[in-house]
């Protein structure tokens, strides 16, 4: 019975904040929406500042600190994407950079005391679906319908169902990977703060360092890297 009382302090589930009716359906605004709104707010403020600085930059003057940081970030992302996708990277620079920064800030938002938005399967699964759409679209565009069907029945036509399952498993597996990693970090931090709340001061910072910063950064990198690998694979050599 004791453990049940203790478990009541542990609190990491998604909570509804208020609900409203639309088309006869009850729709909830949850903690995920609030976290997403805060993340987007940070994003928009940063983007406005960066735009202002870059537009007003004097190409002959020494760049300031903020301009340097923005240029470093863009350069790093460009190098990562062109290093993975080669010469077909140009159309994907914008999307992959946005994806990378969004997932990164979402994972880091656990540091602000928010529940990370990526610890909700409703956020990561659409990202996986976008990846799936990109793969499908690029396969059709670069290999044609005939090439797509030929790829589907790769060794023999009898293998087509297995290839279809393999294609469908891609968005599910990459979104579940991101979701489960961030969720495990969130649950671990909730357990530390909920069950050890008498002695949890100071040292959970190291746990945040691992679960939020390290794990979050690695998973962001992995998600973008896998998206790029799959899309580059769909584009092929031509």
């Amino acid at each position, binding site marked *: 019975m004791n453990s049940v009382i203790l478990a009541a302090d542990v609190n990491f*589930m998604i909570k509804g904040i208020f609900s409203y009716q639309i088309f006869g359906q009850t729709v909830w605004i949850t903690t995920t929406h609030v976290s997403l709104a805060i993340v987007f707010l940070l994003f928009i403020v940063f983007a406005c500042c960066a735009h202002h600085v870059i537009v007003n930059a004097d190409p002959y003057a020494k760049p300031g600190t903020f301009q340097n940081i923005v240029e470093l970030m863009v350069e790093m992302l460009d190098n990562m994407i062109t290093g993975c996708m080669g010469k077909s990277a140009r159309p994907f620079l914008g999307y992959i950079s946005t994806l990378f920064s969004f997932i990164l800030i979402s994972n880091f938002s656990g540091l602000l005391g928010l529940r990370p938005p990526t610890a909700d399967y409703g956020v990561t699964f659409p990202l996986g679906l976008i990846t799936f759409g990109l793969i499908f679209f690029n396969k059709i565009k670069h290999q044609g319908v005939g090439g797509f069907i030929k790829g589907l029945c790769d060794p023999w036509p009898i293998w087509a169902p297995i290839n279809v399952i393999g294609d469908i498993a891609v968005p599910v*597996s990459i979104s*579940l*990977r991101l979701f*489960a*990693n961030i*969720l*495990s970090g969130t*649950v671990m931090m909730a357990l530390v703060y909920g069950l050890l709340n008498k002695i949890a001061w100071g040292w959970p910072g190291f746990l945040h360092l691992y679960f939020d910063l390290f794990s979050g950064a*690695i*998973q962001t*990198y*992995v998600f973008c*890297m*896998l998206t790029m690998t799959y899309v580059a694979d769909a584009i092929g050599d031509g």
Partner: protein
Amino acid sequence: MNISGQEFIFGCSAIGAGLAVIAGIGPGVGQGIAAGHAASAVGRNPGAKSDVTSTMLLGQAVAETTGLYGLLIAMLLLFVKPFT
């Protein structure tokens, strides 16, 4: 001692969750092998350290997925309670 059906299902769910996280053994072994080979690769060719490290981290994160599926099953059993 009387155990109601609900409590019995709770207990069995907890045992199932414990069994599900045994899935963590596989990724642990796999990640260890990957890290060991990466260490020996860096030892042989220290110039390629950053490439080896990023490849290792990518492979490890992919290998981790199976363990995370076990963790997800455990979470579902403990907190979502699908069988009650």
